[in-house]
């Protein structure tokens, strides 16, 4: 009996595998693939709120309007790229640096690790509200500190020049997730490599540059990719901190805020769908490029071993 069951199991192992992945696959089809395809379809229509039946097909009209007439498309894209250009590398460096410190063998390190991760479990809404107070021109901690050291106060949320730096500063708050991944990566680096380097007289800096960083490139690559994808879709914190208008002179109008306004303020869902398809394509192409170029700078130990 047991043998027959084993045989059946072996013969149908593919089918059983499919059964196990079915819940995920069904979720993917219903909640990801179908909405994506429908969104793609809507982007070629003039779908507005209240459209009954099949929305009118207008071909590439939405896309043409986005590229030729929509001033806020370029503005929101610029704002998003600016945000990405600073927030992604800064967060990577910050998370990596903290992970390096937390990887030291010091008494009570578990406590420090927990403390550094705590901000990441604070809900984004709460964190943003805290930051709003933190950035208050007159009473906020940041300006109080700047005045204390003799610097001029910054109008974090009221000056068009300071809005984007404020958002970038806020993005650093959520470094905990990246830090944990870096920490896991650091703990996977063989100790004997550092011992060998020490024997050869390698300094701390040399160990960092020639051992730690190269061996951490797969983790850096992963965090970079996730950071870029998340950065393009930044929305909640901006929405809470400066509202749908995007702050003074719309200096904080990020791309997703523009999509939101088109969908829910102007009720132009077809147009908003086209905007989100463009964002998808940008993220998709960037991801492909990153994956393609990763062969040149990401160190996969196994691959090299196989080659040698």
């Amino acid at each position: 009996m047991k043998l027959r069951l084993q045989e059946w199991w072996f013969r149908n192992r593919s089918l059983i595998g499919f059964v196990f992945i079915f819940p995920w696959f069904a979720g993917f089809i219903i909640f990801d693939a179908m909405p994506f395809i429908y969104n793609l379809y809507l982007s070629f229509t003039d779908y507005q709120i209240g459209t009954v039946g099949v929305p009118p097909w207008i071909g590439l009209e939405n896309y043409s309007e986005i590229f030729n007439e929509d001033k806020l498309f370029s503005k929101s894209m610029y704002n998003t790229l600016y945000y990405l250009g600073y927030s992604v590398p800064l967060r990577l460096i910050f998370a990596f640096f903290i992970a390096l410190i937390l990887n030291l063998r010091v008494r009570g390190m578990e406590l420090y690790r927990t403390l550094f991760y705590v901000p990441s479990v604070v809900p984004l809404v709460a964190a943003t509200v805290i930051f709003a107070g933190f950035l208050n021109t007159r009473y906020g901690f940041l300006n109080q500190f700047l005045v204390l050291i003799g610097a001029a106060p910054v109008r974090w949320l009221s000056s068009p020049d300071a809005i984007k730096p404020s958002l970038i500063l806020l993005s650093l708050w959520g470094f905990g997730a990246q830090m944990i991944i870096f920490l896991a990566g650091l703990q996977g680096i063989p100790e004997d490599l550092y011992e060998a380097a020490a024997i050869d007289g390698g300094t701390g800096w040399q160990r960092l540059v020639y051992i730690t960083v190269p061996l951490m490139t797969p983790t850096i690559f992963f965090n970079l990719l996730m950071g870029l994808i998340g950065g393009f879709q930044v929305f909640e914190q901006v929405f809470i901190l400066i509202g749908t208008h995007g702050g003074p002179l719309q200096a904080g109008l990020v791309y997703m805020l523009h999509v939101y306004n088109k969908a829910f303020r102007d009720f132009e869902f077809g147009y908003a769908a086209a905007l989100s398809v463009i964002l998808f394509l940008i993220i998709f192409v960037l991801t492909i490029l990153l994956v393609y170029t990763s062969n040149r700078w990401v160190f996969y130990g196994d691959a090299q071993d196989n080659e040698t």
Partner: protein
Amino acid sequence: MKVSRLFGLAIALMMLLSLGLAPTLAQDCEGEVIELEFMNWWGAHREALMDTLIGHFEAENPCIRVINQVQPWDNRAELLATAAASSNPPGIIMSTRPETYQFALSGLIIPIDAYVEAEGTDISVFYDGEIGLQYWNGELYGLPMPTAGLISPLYFYNKNMLRDAGFDPENPPQTWQEMEEVARAVTVADAMGVEVLGTSLGNNGDAFVFWLYTNNGKYSSDDGRTLLFNSPEGVETLEWMVNFTNEINGGVENMTDFFQDVNFSQGDHPFFDDALAMLHINSAAFGHLNNVEPDLYWDTDSWGVMIRPYNGDNPDAKHTGVTGYNFVGAWAYTIPAAHPPEKQAAAFKFAEFIGVHELGGCAFLFAQSRPSPVQACNENPAYYEINPYWDKVKEALAVDTPVQITPVQGQLAEILTNSVEEAFFGVKSAEDALNDAHAEMQALLDEFWAEFDANNM
């Protein structure tokens, strides 16, 4: 006692309660009970008041059960859009004028003229300017409550601050020039911004339009097809706003900072701390003030109310308010098209109760010391006992002027706000900013009307 037993008891208690409640409705109603989900934004602090209104309605209409669905203000746009467009929308929706027009244009809500006629609803009880705002393309889509008026024409002022600055608190500023004089004397600023403020004129499109009318300007033509705000009066208004803000208040950034994180309805506002002399605010402020600072509310030696100042240098200018222009003005109760006729009829009964019944909007607004869009409600002498400035309220209602808008008002207002901001930040001159906004907005408006006319030929 074990947790499971406690849980069981709680379930049993809930079932008993529900059994006890259900027959009450069934006994009073001879027929099927219609449930009406009432999507509204009256806020948690007015929930009990609204429940009282609903209680009175249900007592008169036992076969209709209204479910008070107070919604959070955050994410309002997406909540409303998705609810209205869904196949199962709420039974009745509280919407603003631009939303009502958008929904009407999209066929998401029904015109109520037939119900008004069938039920014999006397809509002449509303001020003409109030009910007039709820018509789109010649059809009535909702009954108003609260007033669309009194969004802009009033300002509250701090008598102590005026007195301390050497002004007569019983003769507050009536013109732009007088207001400037007070503001110059009161405002205290330093490197960190403003500590004590005379007044803020606002720095968005809404504020510009409000001040434009006090300079004898107009936003649009009476048919809503031509925008007129970039007139010489418009340019003069925006230049005055920018100069006032820069010279007296130290720039627009100071104003954003000064009003950051303040909330009048929760008592967290510089007006309560003697840090703001004149506050341009809508009539909801009476109820909020009474709620959060009841002692101050009745201390009429400390604060007063006046009508929005006008340009004293323009002989044609006068005290004026603007109704139906901005996003939070001109609320109405609209009925989704997706429901069967019996539910729509029930929704109309509730809308009618809110609109014209003495125990509806009339009592609801009276409890908040604010006026009703129904003229007779405001004649109630008891208002003088609950609102120390009732005469001013009535005076302000009389100066309100309706503005014609279209379903694309949200987009137009956003363009105007962007341009007004550009003038405040010195990116463009007031004239260039308004002309550029006008060109962009008029093109959008023309496109809308062209499509509208083509579909309605």
